[in-house]
Every structure is written in structure tokens, then in C-alpha cells.
């Protein structure tokens, strides 16, 4: 499995560390407990198909990536810098 890091190019997956679903980019804005926080912390989808995940390129550029991966075929379809995704208001 290789991940196309936007900075480093195609790299072997051993250079990366998996974090989880990319919900980490959608932290609820308010500090009070709410259904949004419950969902943010506890609830995850389990999709059969494309899903966005956070991967850390720790043995490479050190950047956080949002990787779009198909859980059925294991195809890695895209990778973007998380900072760019977050900056775009996603």
C-alpha cells in the first residue's frame, strides 16, 4: 500500500501512522456538552466504500494528511494536506 503524499510523492505505508476517521477536523465549536460532542468523540461510521482518514507522515515530511481510501478494494484514491483541508473550511 502506498500513499501519495502531496509533499513527498508516493510513499510506502510503513512511513505513515494511522489516526482514524477524519472527523478530527470537525471539532464542535462550542465548549458545552452537546449531541455534536457525543458524536465527535464516540460515534464513527463504518463505511463499505470510500472514507476519509487521518494519516501522519511521521517518517517523512511530518505532515498530517487526509487520505481517501476505499475500505472494500483498499484503493487509495487521494491524499491532501490536512492543513489545506482545514483551511478550506471542510
Amino acid at each position, binding site marked *: 500500500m502506498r500513499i501519495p503524499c502531496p*509533499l*513527498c510523492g508516493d*510513499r510506502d505505508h*510503513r*512511513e505513515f501512522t494511522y489516526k482514524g476517521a477524519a472527523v478530527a477536523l470537525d471539532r464542535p465549536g462550542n465548549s458545552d456538552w452537546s449531541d455534536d460532542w457525543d458524536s465527535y468523540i464516540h460515534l464513527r461510521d463504518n463505511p463499505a466504500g470510500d472514507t476519509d482518514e487521518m494519516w501522519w507522515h*511521521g*517518517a*517523512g*515530511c511530518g*505532515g498530517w494528511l487526509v487520505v481517501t481510501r476505499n475500505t472494500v478494494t483498499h484503493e487509495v484514491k487521494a491524499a491532501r494536506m490536512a492543513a489545506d483541508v482545514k483551511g478550506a473550511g471542510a
Partner: protein
Amino acid sequence: MASLIAKSPCAGMAPISVGDAALREVDPGVITSLSPLAGGDVGALKAAHGMAFPAPGRASGKAGARAVWSGRGQAFLIGPAPDAALKAHFAMTDQSDGWAVLGLEGTAAREVLARLCPLDLRPDRFKRGHTARTLIGHMTGSVTRVGADSFDLMVFRSMAQTAVHEIEEAMKSVAARG
């Protein structure tokens, strides 16, 4: 005041020559990490030291005075002490004592590295002046092609002995295949 003896990171371990590959320690001079400040001008590096601030995966300059991309939003200035004019444009940290730098050379150098790094090292893909942060064995490091059969490798200083050992094992392994 005690008089301390400075030792290089790989003192007593290199040079090593096996088959068509040779490993030697490189004295890098001063290593300074440069991270562009918001609103800073990366062109300040060119003005002060004559080499461009490198794009991701690239190194600029030449032996003795290089700028090597070292991660997202960061490059190492290797060789000269940083000009004071850079302060306004980069966050800088002296890392000179933090790294062990090794030179791997010879016609088998690429094959040796191929046993340690998950990189495409073919000459048309990883050219002179290309650099990568990647794994060297199980260590994170920096690999820069400085010549047709010549690579500069950097690992954390604490990993120097392990790096030399693993590279030597790879050199022997390649040489044994003839």
C-alpha cells in the same frame, strides 16, 4: 574547568569499504533548521548564502554549503553559520550536534540504500539534488543524492552506531551477491 574532548558522532566507526560501496563520516559544519515565518521572505536565504530555499524534496547549494528540505515548512542550512539577516524571515534552531551525517558512495551505493529505504532511487526518479525524509532501516532520516553514485545520509546522532551497523550489514549483503 575540565577540558573536554569533542568527538564526532561516528568517531571510530567509519570509514568502511565493502565491495563497490564505501561509507564515510561527513563533517557537516553548522546545521541550522530554517522554518519560514509568516510574512517572511524565503528569498532572504538566496541573498545571504547564495542558494535558494529548497522546494519539498529538493536540495540547493553545493558541498560545504547546502540547503536541504527537511520536512513540511522546514529546511536545514548545512555548512555555514546562518547570516544574522535570516532572523527576520525564519525561525532558526542550531541542530549541529543533533545529527550524524554519513556519505555513502560507489557503484553499489544505490543497491545498498535500496535495502534500507522504501524509496524509488532510480537515477531518473531520484536525481542529484533530490532529497527525502524517509526511513533508513528502522530509523527516520534524511537521504540526499549529491552525485551519480553518492548519497548523504542523516540520522539522529543517538542513532549513529545503529546506522553505521545497519548500513555496513547492507553493504556486506550486496557485496556477497557479487
